[in-house]
């Protein structure tokens, strides 16, 4: 899951990015409102973590512009404890949730996962597909109840595919999910991860649509394992 973090304080931004990365998120960090808008225009992030007191363009302005432009991606605002008015304004401007500074990194990650679940229309925290179960909170994968060891990127790739069965994801789309701006991407990185996943979970789980990308079949189709 790739998250855009908009926070002007260097220390807070660095800590949040590190903490979320440890929890398996791919985090891109911008320090002002204009940079946040530019990053949002790329359409590569799954969720936005927005500080309201951003320089150059406030978080509230960024949020209002997003919603007015039809951008429905989940937005989680970070506000101060005593700024109830800010929270209300943020939620009314279209934010989906908020955390109060100082906040807990674990809670922040859990709220981001909850937002992503809701966006996918699920209530069950466990992502299930056939015999495969993914737990985004603990980063555990199981096949028929047996734990399977996946690397963080393998897990993220599988999660991206299982979140929308039947949809074909291109290499660029998968790379965007897996790698932040600061990560260097090997040209065949996606193929390497898919190869590893097929080895661990079975060759027919991930299908290659030649020239387009990869997908997992819809569960009701006969191709389901």
């Amino acid at each position: 899951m790739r998250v855009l973090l908009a926070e002007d304080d260097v220390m807070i931004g660095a800590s949040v990015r590190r903490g979320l990365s440890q929890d398996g998120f791919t985090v891109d960090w911008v320090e002002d409102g204009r940079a946040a808008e530019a990053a949002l225009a790329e359409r590569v992030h799954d969720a936005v973590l927005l500080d309201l007191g951003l320089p150059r363009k406030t978080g509230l302005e960024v949020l209002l512009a997003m919603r007015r432009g039809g951008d429905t991606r989940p937005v989680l605002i970070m506000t101060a404890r005593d700024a109830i008015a800010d929270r209300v304004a943020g939620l009314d401007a279209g934010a989906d949730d908020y955390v109060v500074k100082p906040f807990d990194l674990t809670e922040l990650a859990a709220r981001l996962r909850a937002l992503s679940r809701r966006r996918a229309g699920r209530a069950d925290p466990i992502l299930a597909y056939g015999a495969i179960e993914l737990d985004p909170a603990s980063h555990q994968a199981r096949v028929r109840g047996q734990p399977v060891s996946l690397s963080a990127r393998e897990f993220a790739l599988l999660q991206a595919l299982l979140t929308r069965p039947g949809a074909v994801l291109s290499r660029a789309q998968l790379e965007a999910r897996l790698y932040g701006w600061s990560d260097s991407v090997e040209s065949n990185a996606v193929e390497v991860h898919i190869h590893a996943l097929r080895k661990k979970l079975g060759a027919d789980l991930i299908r290659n649509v030649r020239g387009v990308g990869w997908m997992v079949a819809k569960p009701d189709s006969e191709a389901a394992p």
Partner: protein
Amino acid sequence: MWLLLGIALAVAAAAVGTYLRARVEANELFDYQLKEMAASLTDAPFAAVPAGAGSIGAGSDAMVVQIWDRNGVQLFLSQPRRVLPQNAQLGFSTVATESGQWRLFSALAAGQVVQIAQPMSARRELAASMALRTIMPLLAVLPFLALLIWFTIARGLRPLDQVAAAVARRSPALLTPLPDSDLPREVQPLVGALNGLLSRLRHTLDAQRAFVADAAHELRTPLTAVHLQAQLAERATTDGERAAALAELKAGLERATRLVEQLLTLAREEPGVSGSQATTVDLAALAREVISDLAPLAGAKGIDLGLSAASASTVSGDADALRTLISNLVDNAIRYTPAGGKVDVALGNDGGGVALTVRDNGPGIAAVDRERVFDRFYRGGGAGGIRGSGLGLAIVKRIAERHFADLELSSGIDGHGLGVTVRFTQPVPPRTLAQDGGATA
């Protein structure tokens, strides 16, 4: 109460005065009477003395008449029971007898000595009754007078009571002006002065509240950072991760500490807090101290820091505050000037007073931002990723205001960067460093 007591004393004094004066008059009157009576008795031969003469004024205060012939033989004694001296001294005399003091008048006529005696008590009684008659009406009106005084004073003091009640209702939360309509002219200056005080108090309190609110808000950011850094340190699984996380935590704590220190400095410079006295301060010496203190910091960034000119530079002021002022300016310049830059401190007198200038060749401040940089917690947008506390220049502004000094922003070295000039235009009066110089920040 005191007024009433005074009036009572005055009445008593009047009574005593009246009594004394009445006694003098009674003496004159009775002496005259004695003399007249003696004359009437000596005008006629003894035989002609009316039989009833002895009964003149019968009673205790009755007169006694004695008549002797040339040989001292008593011819007549009007009241035999009375014991009076048997001798006679011509003219007036006063003698003491068993029955009190008597006033005597003796006259010699037709070979006879006529002596008329009258007790002094008669005179005192007359004087006392005269005095009493005089002060009786005064004593009678005294209670009414007391009532009148009480009523008048209560009425006169009512506006003061109302002002006192209004002042008693005031509290730090309620510092509205006192009502000043319908006030007697005597009370108006007092209420005016009180309202002035209330308004100054209100402004100071508002400024303090705004400051505390700002401070609490600003403290939250470094504390949030420390909170997150501590969580990362907790999560660290390897020694390397833990060391890195702890280093960041330490940096976060240093930032929070520095912010608290700067808040304290600013709080000390707030109006009405600092009570230090103005002394003569050598700015050049202070600048040299600050430069040597900050030289290591400049050296670490490869910045050329120095004092370029230092002419006559004595001002009167608070040495500690002025050191903070110079230190903040130089520290800011070092902070915002990129590695390899230059920071120059200059002192001079350009006719308009002693001027201290700190120049750098860093990024400078855009003209649009220049008005706001002295505001509390204002940070220049995108100043090369450098984030200070936002208090350095606010502190400089407060200290300059206290010293009646002007602040000017200009471009720095060779037209690049920033130059800040502090110009001490007027001497600070000794002992009175401005407590509220300029409007509150």
